[in-house]
């Protein structure tokens, strides 16, 4: 309830400045910069970061044979520290077979169904998060590098439009909070700039791992909008746009968030 009240206060506070300004490239801050020192220390220490447990699961799933093909990810790709280095940093990417942009977990599931001939992992399942976190870890420290690919342009434009569109009973756009009011408080939370560079994350509030889409859905329910379902094209579009907006920032996967 306190969060809702805080939203309303924020509506009044920002009603005067409706035109939204993009965050300047040199003013960008990772979500980690808005966290308490204790939470940041937890993210930075691999022995204290609970998301590392999920990457260990991902590491063993990588070599587990599955599906009618009885092949593991590693059977085709080899060891992930080499073959997956830098891969997560350039996702979402255009997938030729699907003729559509895929986020990393979408690509994992594409290999799961098309290559392993196995059932797709469910959204937010421990396995899908674990593989995504493990692949993401292989890009840690590397710059977010969205592909310069004209086939992604429509998705990016659509993502930007969604970002600026007012939604929900509270009638807020993502941009109003994350471009115009970052650094301010919303209840007990500091509004971050909404960069996607640490996902999947371990969120203390969830007491578990979650994807970027779970985070999007939280923000949508926060403004009392009907959240899109997992895997929705709108979420892919938002991520394509946000990864462009976060280009050059270091990948932090697997992150910790409050």
């Amino acid at each position, binding site marked *: 309830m306190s969060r809702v009240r805080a939203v309303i206060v924020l509506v009044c506070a920002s009603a005067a400045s409706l035109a939204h300004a993009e965050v300047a490239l040199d003013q960008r801050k990772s979500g980690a910069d808005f966290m308490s020192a204790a939470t940041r220390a937890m993210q930075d220490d*691999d*022995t*204290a970061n*609970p998301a*590392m*447990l*999920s990457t*260990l*699961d991902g590491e063993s799933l990588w070599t587990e044979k599955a599906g009618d093909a009885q092949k593991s990810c590693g059977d085709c790709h080899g060891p992930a520290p080499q073959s997956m280095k830098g891969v997560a940093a350039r996702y979402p990417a255009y997938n030729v077979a699907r003729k559509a942009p895929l986020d990393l977990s979408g690509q994992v599931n594409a290999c799961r169904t098309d290559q392993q001939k196995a059932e797709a992992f469910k959204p937010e399942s421990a396995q899908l998060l674990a593989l995504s976190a493990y692949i993401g870890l292989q890009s840690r420290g590397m710059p977010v590098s969205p592909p310069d690919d004209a086939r992604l342009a429509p998705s990016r434009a659509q993502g930007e439009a969604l970002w600026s569109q007012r939604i929900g009973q509270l009638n807020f756009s993502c941009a109003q909070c994350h471009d115009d009011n970052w650094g301010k408080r919303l209840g007990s939370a500091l509004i971050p700039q909404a960069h996607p560079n640490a996902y999947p994350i371990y969120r*203390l509030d969830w*007491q*578990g791992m979650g994807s970027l889409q779970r985070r999007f859905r939280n923000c949508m329910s926060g403004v009392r909008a009907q959240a899109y379902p997992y895997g929705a094209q709108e979420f892919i579009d938002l991520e394509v746009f946000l990864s462009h907006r976060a280009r050059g920032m270091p990948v932090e996967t697997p992150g910790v968030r409050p």
Partner: protein
Amino acid sequence: MAGNMGRALISLPAKAKRGAVIEIRAMIAHPMETGYRPDSQGRLAPRDIVNRFECLFEGEQVFAADLFPAMSANPYLSFTMRVDAGGELAFRWRDDSGAMAEEKRRIEVE
């Protein structure tokens, strides 16, 4: 490993000087269901927490803790130990369902 008991992450130096005090950290994946949380059907999820942790050096207990529902998921414990000789450390967790997890690590003296 069974039920809710998951992966463990242990950190300690592989080598230490004789007599040195080292820090050991141990974390295990476990949801730590308090017994007060409604599940997706609205029923209370039964309590299942890691209630006991022990660390043994060559069979002798060097650290132990009883854990309670206020602990967060994936309990993380950090403690110190003086290293007088090289040997094997065993780490043991037990939860309410009776599931056990054990991990072993060696430490050498230099």
